[in-house]
């Protein structure tokens, strides 16, 4: 569980400090690895790996769908702003 928390920390650090949109998304991927590790580790400790596996598989399917959509949005952002810098996305600022 400590390792899963470490992965969550690495991902959060990336989200807080990086500016490249693709890098930020890599940070989200690292966080999702931490979550799936925590899910399966809990199932392994409680000797209930079957249920944990099915939850992890559901999580992976959701993750793939999220990645496809987010990368399509990133490509569209690049087409509009010609940059991957998150600071240039200020048009939605209220």
């Amino acid at each position: 569980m400590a390792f899963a928390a470490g992965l969550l920390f690495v991902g959060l650090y990336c989200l807080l400090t990086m500016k490249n949109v693709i890098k930020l998304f890599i940070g989200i991927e690292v966080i999702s690895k931490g979550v799936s590790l925590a899910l399966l580790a809990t199932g392994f400790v409680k000797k209930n790996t079957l249920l944990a596996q099915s939850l992890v598989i559901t999580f992976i399917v959701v993750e793939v769908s999220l990645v496809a959509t987010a990368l399509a949005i990133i490509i569209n952002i690049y087409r509009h702003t010609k940059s991957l810098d998150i600071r240039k996305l200020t048009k939605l600022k209220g």
Partner: protein
Amino acid sequence: MIWQILLLSGLILFSILAILSKDLIKSAISLALASLFLGILFFQMNAPYAGVFEISVVAGLITVLFMLTIALTKAEGDVRESKLARLIFPLVFVAFILIDVLVMKGLLQKVPALPDTSEPGAFGDVLWKQRTFDLVGQLAIILAGVFSVLALFRKRNKDE
């Protein structure tokens, strides 16, 4: 146990490389290697189906999608990441690990132990009979993903 700790250390190491590397291609490859380590770890934890999904889908498909996106957006040079974030990271990470070890130990002892709910049966029974609603949700999410990608890449009319 030693193998598990080695795999977990490799997982953390490649995840750190993925976020600290300047080259986006190297970051994507490091992420794929981290997924590979996680998949092998799943096999070690008696979860072969999750391991196969992790290696084939996350390490394979998602890496390909990342590579495609990086190839389509050749603009790595224009984003300057702050050097301070890279320099401070080891210090912050070591501090977090120390706090993690100290706090987690006490915290996990305080949490009341749940009963072991080990159940006989096959993986298919659990997935198809117990988690049927999850499967419906998965189908809905896949369809939502497909339609959103189609909507994002549709050709625009001249009037728009």
